[in-house]
């Protein structure tokens, strides 16, 4: 399985900066919303996702033996 990830370094940086703002910034509204953002640490979720994406890219290339 080939995972597609933005090829250019600056695009990856832009995504990090963007998520840092739209997920961690902005006015927080709670009550009557479908999903209370305050309940979910979105940044952690997204960044963890990012890390794991990069991690799995690396592991595909660099994994030694094992399940491949």
């Amino acid at each position: 399985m080939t995972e597609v990830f933005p090829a250019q370094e600056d695009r990856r940086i832009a995504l990090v900066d963007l998520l840092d703002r739209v997920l961690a910034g902005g006015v927080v509204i709670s009550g009557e919303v479908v999903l209370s953002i305050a309940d979910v640490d979105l940044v952690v979720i997204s960044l963890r996702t990012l890390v794991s994406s990069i991690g799995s890219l690396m592991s595909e290339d660099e994994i030694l033996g094992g399940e491949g």
Partner: protein
Amino acid sequence: MNVEGIWVYAVIHGVRAQSRVCGLRGVADEPVHVVACDELAAVVGVVNLDEFGQDALRRNLEDLDWVAQKARAHDAVISAVAQSGAVIPVRMATVYLDEGGVQKLLESRRQDFGATLTRLSGRAEVGVKVYADPTRLATPDAGQDDDGSRTGTSYLMRRRRELTSREEAYREAALEADRIHGTLMRYAVDGKRKPPPDRSLSGRDELTVLNGTYLVDSDAVGFFRETVVALGLSTGRLSLETTGPWPPYSFAGEPVAE
């Protein structure tokens, strides 16, 4: 069963609100419109709860491609609206079940939103990151006393000197970052330091010694960026980078400057 929800992008002044969002498309490629209440308006779009309902959102927020795509769409709407006047960005993934809920929100936080719009009016956010390159920071004198001895003791001593000089270099870089932040705060209306992003995310080997973001008068953004360039030229060891101008995401809540 209700299958549609209301995705909220931003809160703006009610004046000319509909014309400010005319032609924009949102996270579900839906036409963006406004929900008005007195002198305020919320910039919203109708989305399908199959994709944007509570369970779906929790699931989708774990999907990087989905998050990236929706984050760009969310930002595109807010950035477009910010072109024509003050805007309070709303955190991504805020979804109401109906427009009545959005109206109640505008009503209940009317004063708060009004004050925030006044504070953010004519201002934009500029991000500044300062990187320290470990290879430029550390000045190991390891090779200089290389008398050919390859004993364990001389290796350990050399290694300790290297580590000490690197620690000192990082400490100095951190102090320099503090000074840079202090200088930028003088040119900004407000500002804050955010935690540095994970190094595997930044895509750079350098250490992020400052991840700052600043609220700047829109007509002073150029000058602010020039200041960053000048600060970069005055430091040999650190590299500075600006992002934005952004809509004032990081300043949408309470004022942060102490």
